[in-house]
């Protein structure tokens, strides 16, 4: 969960050279080291020589398209992959997430949000076991199921509970750190740094909203407990599947 000492290296695979340049600059200004390549062959070449901490992948590419690359890369390593695309069709998003992308961003996007999300994903993946070949697709706790791939939460009866993107990230972060007290700052770091929405909301607001939806009695929370001196504790045992 610690911030990496060196700036994170992002490899951007995008065939529109102007956009590639603009994204690289935007990320560089926010503390990343970003290299851009235009297609999958160049990407393979680059990854062979250098390395990258995260791959930012456009969906529409000449030759092998984003979906194919994602599937291939996921088989090779645990490196986080974020899809970038102009399509916001549900089917494309679900397919990408099912094939192993860690997140999905539609163009046009706010560069501040892009940077925050990349940082969050790097933090989240940083705490995972790098030798683990497959990151778990879903997590179970107290009968609930959190599908990390499709970003869905279902209750013990299988009923889907709608969550905003930020709320999902909060409960995901809590899941990954079950049994450990997370301070508000730590939770903020793990969830876009609050940069997801137009209005920054405190972690408290997100937790309170999540409690409304998942706690049997929101006024006496049992799943997400408030710890004195500022922090939250996710109490149930979490099983990764």
């Amino acid at each position, binding site marked *: 969960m610690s911030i990496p000492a060196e700036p994170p290296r992002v490899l951007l695979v995008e065939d*529109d050279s*102007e*956009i590639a340049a*603009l*994204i690289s*600059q*935007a990320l560089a*200004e926010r503390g990343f080291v970003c290299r851009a390549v235009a297609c999958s062959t160049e990407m393979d070449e680059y990854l062979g020589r250098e390395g990258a901490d995260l791959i930012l992948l456009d969906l*529409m590419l000449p030759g092998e398209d984003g979906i194919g690359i994602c599937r291939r890369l996921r088989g090779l390593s645990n490196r986080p992959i974020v899809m970038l695309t*102009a*399509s*916001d*069709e*549900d*089917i494309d998003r679900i397919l990408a997430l099912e094939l192993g992308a860690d997140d999905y961003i*539609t*163009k*046009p*996007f*706010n*560069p*501040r949000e892009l940077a925050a999300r990349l940082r969050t994903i790097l933090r989240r993946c940083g705490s995972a076991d790098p030798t683990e070949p497959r990151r778990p697709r879903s997590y179970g706790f107290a009968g609930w199921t959190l599908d990390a791939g499709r970003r869905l939460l279902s*209750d013990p*009866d*299988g*009923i*889907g*509970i*709608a*969550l*905003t993107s930020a*709320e999902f990230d909060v409960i995901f972060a809590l899941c990954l750190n079950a049994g450990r007290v997370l301070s508000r700052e730590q939770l903020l770091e793990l969830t876009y740094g609050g940069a997801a*929405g*137009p*209005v920054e*909301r405190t972690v408290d607001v997100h937790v309170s*909203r999540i409690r*409304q*939806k998942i706690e049997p009695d929101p006024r006496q929370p049992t799943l997400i407990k408030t710890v004195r001196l500022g922090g939250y504790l996710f109490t149930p045992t979490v099983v990764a599947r």
Partner: protein
Amino acid sequence: MRLGLKRALPRTTTMQVVAVVVLAVVVGVLATAITLTAVAGSARMRMNPDVKAASEAARIAIVAHMVADAPSNAAAAELVEGAQSTAGSVALVASRNAPPPARPSAFTQRVVEHLRADWRLQPAIVGSDTVSIFATPDRLLIFQESEFQTLRTFLTFQASVSLVLIFCVVCALAFYAVRWITRPLATIANAAHAFARSPDDDSPLKDVGPAEIRQLATAFSTMRDRTRQLIHDRGQMMAAISHDMRTPLTRLRLRADRAAPDDDRAAMLADITVMEDMIREALTYLRDGRAVEPPQTIDLPALLRTICDQAQDLGHCVNYGGPARLAYCGQPNALQRAISNVVDNATKYGDAVVVTLESERDATRIVVVDDGPGIPAALRERVFEPFFKIGGARTARGFGLGLSIARDIVERHHGMIELQDHHPRGLSVRITLLANSNQ
């Protein structure tokens, strides 16, 4: 009277053609019968009635003698059978079954006179067209004499038989022939329905039936192909909007983001957001016909709370009221879009918006209430039209598709959406969905 007649007329082509043919046959047979009657009648007129009466009297006399001389009752019965002729019928009955006497017709009178004059036979009883003679003291021979009776027998018998036979044959043939015409029509109708259900089914229409029907089938196939092409082209346009328009917008946004923070930058970013929203709205509208989101059981209060929270995050005052948990099976993303659109509208015109959820036995109701100016009754249907904006506002955000998208989605869930006045002021949008039959 006219209305009653209309309702009695047959509706289908089959029944109409059968009715016409049967009517033709019946009229034909009747016309034949009437013509024959007239012809035969006139022919009979030419015959001298007196000569006819004399020959009838002769016949009666001969038959009466033969029966009287018959050796046995059986023989007499046989003779009577043999004596039936086209001229008239003969019956042998017991005396107690004698017909009552009556005033004889002119022809019968002549026959009786000839019997007396030429044959010295006195009939026992004379009826209007019958002459009865004792065969034996207890048996009576009744002769039916009528000029027209024979023809009547012939016509009645022949006409009835032929009418029934022809009726059956014609019905069968007509049914078969008409089915040959109408079955291709039914096939075309089915193909039209199938096209609505699965537009990609390319099975060709069979080329059978009469020439006009084949023309219709060909025209339908052409139209189906053209419609499919239109749908395909629309899909292409969607891809174009999606990719080709969003790419330059991405560059714009990235560049605007790097500009010096000032009023221009804020204005540029705001306009870029407007354009993004419009593209998303248009794509949603274009895409909606092909919606393939699988239904899922979701918690409606969680969905409504999420929508309210997102609106609050944008600075609006939107709150949820209702049960803590309610399961519902539907398309989650579509429902979220529909209700978000309604809430969006509400926040545009009002300050405080409340979203409530009510669950009844067979319906689930979501009500979005705002305290804005409301919508006049005259415009309540029009606001659901695509691209319609109140006040003709070209300045308002978006294309004006929000409510029409919402209604499409609600109706896809077999529900309905209504606009009503809210008291003391504002608009109440009521979305009624059928309650599912699950827990």
